[in-house]
């Protein structure tokens, strides 16, 4: 195992830790701005894992869409109603812990049993095309309908969002 491999492994662990601790920060902190920060760190970690999975394109798209668009929109949503350092959910914290912890334990048990019992088929040894060209061909040929549907969904969402925020205020 060369030094380069050890370095790559270390980078991989760093990305895994970023993902998990970013997620934990996102759900455990009380200041909402830190929540978005934790989510951004988690998304960055996932982007790094995508790179290790052999798709630089997906990694860049993850950074562009999640970090560049979604997190900015979420920060904007927070700044509408809260001051940046305001503590949200004060006084109702811990109310749902009795529900949340059993839900997590049930998820862990279910996933653990599913992953443990499955026998994964061996990796096909044939030449496989991970390239961006293949993604483009798939997106426009075989999965063209899904591509169109997601475009229409985005369009509807944009129009719906504009309608929701520009509807006239109720005079009551």
């Amino acid at each position: 195992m060369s030094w380069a491999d050890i370095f790559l492994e270390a980078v991989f662990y760093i990305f895994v830790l970023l993902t998990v601790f970013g997620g934990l920060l996102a759900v455990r902190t009380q200041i909402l701005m830190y929540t978005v920060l934790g989510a951004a760190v988690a998304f960055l970690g996932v982007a790094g894992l995508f790179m290790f999975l052999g798709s630089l394109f997906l990694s860049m798209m993850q950074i562009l869409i999640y970090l560049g668009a979604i997190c900015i929109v979420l920060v904007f949503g927070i700044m509408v109603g809260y001051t940046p350092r305001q503590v949200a959910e004060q006084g109702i914290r811990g109310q749902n812990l009795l529900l949340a912890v059993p839900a997590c334990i049930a998820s862990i048990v279910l996933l653990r049993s599913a992953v443990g019992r499955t026998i994964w088929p061996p990796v096909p040894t044939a030449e496989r095309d991970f390239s961006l060209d293949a993604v483009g061909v798939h997106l426009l040929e075989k999965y063209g309908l899904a591509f169109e549907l997601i475009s229409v969904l985005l369009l509807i969402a944009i129009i719906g969002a504009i309608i929701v925020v520009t509807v006239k205020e109720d005079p009551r």
Partner: protein
Amino acid sequence: MLSQDLKTYLVVAALLLIIGVYGVVQRRSFIGMLISAELILAGAGLNFMAFNRFIAPEPAVGQVFTLIIMGIAATETAIGVSFILAVYRQFKTIDPIQLNELQESSLCGIPEVDDGPVVPSGGKPGDQDI
């Protein structure tokens, strides 16, 4: 090497899912729940990519699916934040506690029961629901 093992990625994706479920159940603010849902979607995308890399016969399919998941996540965020804006315009706050207090003191505009049948002045009944 852990970075070349399918189960590592499955465990990380499962952790993201579990963290997201915890957040969705435990959080009581709109933004917090929205972010937790995003974490769940990120975990799903990671799972797709892991299966794509290790056991799928056609390795571009998982990337296509992950791209579609990203699009859906962006859609969900746009709709959620627009709802938050609408709630803010109506109630001038998005703090769940204050919204709850507003509801209890019936200041939030919900009419009392004995107002009689509500007939909108223009249009058919049910038009105001849109």
